[in-house]
């Protein structure tokens, strides 16, 4: 049947307990059109007016394009009723209609169930680094002044002839070398906790030996 400007009037009154003829308003009253071929659903909410009569206002001319997507064919009409007071919602098969929509279109392909286009993740490009050669050259360049320093110290006559082989001297110098070794280890990847733990012990030893050594040197200088 072709319905153009027809109001569907449905009275929902069959669910009261008292005598079966009283009209009630319920929370959820929907009218569902299901296309029997594509199984696509179109829902309309039925509103109740003051006289407790439910209507859905279907202007088929506009609804054909907007709600039905201009897809004609056989539709089954169901009434879905739900409410807080009902123990279970009810789906009542009302009718089966044949909608002939002018300029009927083929049902659009359902895109939601197909795979979306693939996204390839773009990892962060690493920052531009200078070529290895330049870095190597500058590493050598930075270490070069150390050689120059040693040469200048030799020219100035810096010497360690005054060193005394005592316990504190060995402890102090050994402690300093141990600290340097701990730092090299730290640079190579040992974490800070281990480093500080090792450092604590070595630092105490180095400090005590250093203090003793330097005081003895100072005392010797004073005595001179």
């Amino acid at each position, binding site marked *: 049947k072709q319905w153009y400007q027809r109001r569907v009037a449905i009275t929902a009154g069959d669910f009261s307990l008292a005598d079966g003829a009283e009209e009630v308003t319920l929370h959820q009253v929907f009218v569902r059109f299901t296309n029997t071929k594509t199984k696509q659903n179109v829902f309309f909410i039925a509103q109740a007016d003051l006289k407790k009569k439910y209507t859905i206002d279907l202007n088929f001319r506009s609804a054909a394009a907007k709600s039905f997507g201009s897809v004609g064919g056989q539709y089954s009409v169901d009434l879905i009723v739900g409410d807080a007071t009902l123990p279970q919602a009810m789906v009542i098969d009302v009718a089966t209609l044949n909608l002939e929509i002018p300029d009927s279109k083929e049902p659009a392909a359902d895109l939601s169930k197909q795979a979306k286009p693939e996204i390839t993740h773009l990892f962060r490009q690493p920052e531009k680094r200078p070529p290895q050669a*330049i870095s190597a050259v500058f590493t050598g360049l930075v270490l070069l002044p150390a050689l120059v320093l040693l040469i200048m110290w030799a020219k100035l006559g810096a010497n360690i002839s005054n060193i005394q082989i005592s316990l504190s001297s060995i402890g102090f110098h050994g402690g300093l070398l141990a600290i340097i070794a701990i730092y090299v280890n730290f640079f190579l990847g040992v974490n800070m906790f281990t480093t500080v733990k090792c450092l604590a012990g070595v630092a105490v030893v180095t400090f005590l030996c250093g203090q003793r050594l330097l005081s003895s040197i100072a005392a010797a200088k004073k005595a001179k």
Partner: protein
Amino acid sequence: AVVSTQSGHYGREFRDMVSSVGAPSLVDVVSRLYNEYNTKTPQKLKIIDAYLGYIMITGVIQFVYCCLVGTFPFNSFLSGFISTVASFVLGVCLRIQSNPQNTAVFKDITVERAFADFIFAHCVLHLVVLNFIG
């Protein structure tokens, strides 16, 4: 007594130089500075000065490298450069405190104590630098 003799000696020579050739030229001043430095500075201070020069050159090279290739691992550049700057500062402190001309200013700090402070500060500095260099 040593200090006053030095300044008096310097003043007489300076007056001689000025009276003989008019205003002293830059070359004269620099060469005189160089001579004074070589003769009057104790050997220990010269050793420290050589060390300071080395530190400064290393810092300059690091800075030039950063200017050339950009600051990508900025923390590495900062830690290296600040390491040289801080080492330079500590070296200057050591030099000031071990200069025998300054014993009046640093009454309680012996040269050995200055050196001990120097070593300790360097240990802390290098720990922090190695942590920051990444």
